[in-house]
């Protein structure tokens, strides 16, 4: 501040100043409001010698001692930020986390905490190694951890969870260059990695606590597996509330919906993505259901089963790994939706959400490139 007062004053005294400065001085010596405040710093500033030589380089600021900032427009930005968006996503995941704790108890808490902490620590270590400022508070690594945790079977080993979380952040995100540069959704990549390294544990499920008390069995099959391997339909109402076997946070449709709608309300997700994905799943599975209802499940079942809801609201909508163009977003969700149903109905696996999204993630750069919006004023031939 003191330097500025000095700088502001000098240009007027220099001989080079434009002839108007004499007029200027008369008309515009300290503006009335700054007068009572400013004399003091000016007096202090004067004896300070180092400011002098610097003075000519500075633009001749107005005589009022206030500093003028110069920048290029726009000078007005909204108050969104990456941490704000990410923290809201974390908040939106709270119902799903609560549901997982309700159905699986302390086991769920343990797994979620392990995944969360591992992701944050990995992120921090990698950023340190890359000599970047730590950004673990921006919430993006936390989302990866929570999502991965929610996708694990409740009986999953702690060491496996640590390994998966490390892989998700290290390979899925940091090796690509960190936030914004990854091609694949890190949490899904971590889950796919665990699917390959722990194939048995990744597909062994247990009944939620609410059912365990009634039935005397711990291990169980998910509705999708029951359908695929036993040809047995599970009641959709149980799937809606989450009272079925499955990954900890994927089973409770209602909890995920609350979080997803919250994000939509906040404007952080484009309605096209979740609704397009779910809509495609419903329509495509509906075709087969209409052909043979005894063999294929109805669309509602497919919407509520497995990871469809969690994937639709929290993974398809991942900003970094989904297309940016309106047309591209449609292509992305429709293809992913069809793929998920195809894997569910005809693939070797009971569940296809994870691979459908990961597979389409790989095409996002290509989709973006070829679905550029038509620039305003681009005309069709022969039209106005």
């Amino acid at each position, binding site marked *: 501040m003191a330097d500025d007062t000095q700088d502001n004053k000098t240009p007027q005294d220099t001989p080079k100043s*434009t*002839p*108007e400065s004499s*007029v*200027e001085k008369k*008309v*515009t010596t300290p*503006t*009335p*409001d*700054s007068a009572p*405040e400013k004399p003091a710093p000016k007096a202090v500033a004067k004896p300070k010698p180092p400011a002098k030589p610097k003075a000519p380089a500075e*633009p*001749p*600021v*107005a*005589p*009022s001692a*206030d*500093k*003028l*900032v*110069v*920048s*290029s*427009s*726009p*000078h*007005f*930005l*909204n108050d*969104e*930020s*990456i941490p*704000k*968006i990410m923290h809201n996503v974390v908040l939106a995941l709270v119902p799903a986390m609560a549901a997982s704790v309700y159905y699986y108890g302390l086991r769920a808490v343990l797994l979620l905490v392990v995944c969360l902490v591992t992701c944050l620590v990995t992120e921090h270590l990698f950023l340190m190694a890359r000599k970047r400022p730590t950004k673990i508070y921006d919430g993006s690594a936390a989302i990866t951890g929570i999502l991965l945790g929610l996708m694990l079977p409740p009986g999953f080993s702690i060491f496996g969870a640590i390994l998966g979380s490390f892989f998700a952040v290290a390979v899925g995100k940091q090796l690509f*260059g*960190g*936030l*914004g*540069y990854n091609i694949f959704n890190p949490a899904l990549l971590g889950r796919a990695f665990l699917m390959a390294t722990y194939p048995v544990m990744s597909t062994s499920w247990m009944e939620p606590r609410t059912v365990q008390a009634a039935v005397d069995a711990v291990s169980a099959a998910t509705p999708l597996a029951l359908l695929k391997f036993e040809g047995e339909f599970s009641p959709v109402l149980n799937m809606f509330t989450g009272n079925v076997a499955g990954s900890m946070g994927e089973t409770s449709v209602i909890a995920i919906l609350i979080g997803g709608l919250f994000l939509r309300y906040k404007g952080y997700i*484009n309605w096209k993505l979740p609704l397009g994905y779910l809509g495609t799943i419903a329509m495509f599975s509906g075709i087969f259901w209409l052909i043979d209802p005894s063999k294929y499940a109805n669309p509602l079942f497919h919407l509520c089963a497995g990871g469809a809801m969690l994937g639709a609201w929290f993974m398809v909508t991942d*900003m*970094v790994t*989904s*297309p*940016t*163009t*309106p047309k591209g*977003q449609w292509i992305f969700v429709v293809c992913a939706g069809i793929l998920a149903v195809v894997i569910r109905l005809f693939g070797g696996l009971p569940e296809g959400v994870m691979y459908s999204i990961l597979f389409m993630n790989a095409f996002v750069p290509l989709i973006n490139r070829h679905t*550029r*919006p*038509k*620039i*305003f*004023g*681009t*005309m069709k031939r022969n039209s*106005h």
Partner: protein
Amino acid sequence: MGLKTFDRGIHPAYNKELASSKAITPAALPKTVIIPLRQHAGAPCTALVKKGDVVEEGQKIADVEAFVSAPIHASISGKVKEIDLYQHPVGMKVPSIVITGDGEKKDWGTSGGVTVDLASLTPDAIRTTIRESGIVGMGGAGFPTAVKLNAPKGKKIDTIVLNGCECEPYLTADHRIMLEEADKVVWGMRALMKGVGAPNGFIGIEDNKKDAIEAIKLALGPSCTDIKVIELETKYPQGAEKMLIKAALNRKVPKGKLPLDVGVVVNNVGTAAAIFDALNYGKPLIERVVTVSGNGIKEPKNLLCRIGTTFEEIIKQCGGLKEGGEFEVLNGGPMMGIAQMQLDVPVIKGTSGITALMGEVIKPKKYDACIRCASCVEACPMALMPYRLGDYGNMQRLDDFNGWGGFDCIECGCCSYVCPSKRPLLQWIRLGKLRVRQNQQAQQEQAQLAEQASAK
């Protein structure tokens, strides 16, 4: 909802309440004015007076033969002090005429109502008066109005659109003009329509200015059929020419073309009011309404300022800047305004507002990686992909920059505004444009050199 508008765009905080209730008041007559010889798009003027000449208020003091130009008039009476380079609010130093006033005020009789019968004026006479009165677009771009009205042969203009959107945050000058001088605006509109032979007129006003819509409707009268008021959704940049034409008429100006290619001429409401004064009282464009606002101004106002009054003097009449800290003083509003390095720059014909910002908004922001959230794609009124253009501009991938439509950018700033990573997208796009132009220039120079060498 349901109101007419264009696609995409943003909803910034408008902050118009600071000045929207303040009636237009004339600013104190300045003792000295600095009148730049370049206040319009096109060829700069040359001075018609020299140092020491005595000039009268409203006297033409600069002009040029070129077609795209507008003469400049003395905004106060007095003596020409000098003609020299002065800082211009748009950034560079420009030859300017400095007049020291004698304190005399000329009475133009502008409150006398209509004095001329519009039916008696020929379109040619209207255009000539507009040209000779030095009227340019008063929304900011400063394109000479008479040139707009001179449609090239083979082009038919059927519609005049009057721009009363005023979509820039903080600014309220047009709002006040529509409220207080609705009759002038409507009369000026009719003059414009006659001047160009357009049968239809539309006045586009955003729905955050309900009182202005009412005032204009009242001025039009119930039996008016040729001019329609169109209520538009409040959205930035509604006032951008191409967006306004799309919103009001559902016509799209083709890429690289002008509004007149779709038979439309767009003018600002302030311009229409100035045309009224010029045709009725022979008053050239020597003063304009300037909104002085922003969170750094003590008493926001709408002042009627003489062209050439310094920002400093005007800010002083609004109680000055608030105490302490740093300020960003803009010629225009916060979305497209140009930050000033000094406050002794003059108000020019295109200065619709002086916005002084302080505090958090002007702190330099650190930017982060792009998370491809597509906010900018969803905001860009030109349907560009700003996040890519920004990268191409920044990384100097100029072929890609051109290929992805860098030069279609209208620099409205929506992309930078919405970016959650605070990436300076528009600034990078400008950089890209600059580099492309520099390369073109360098190539031309090289070609010339080669030509000279081969000639030898």
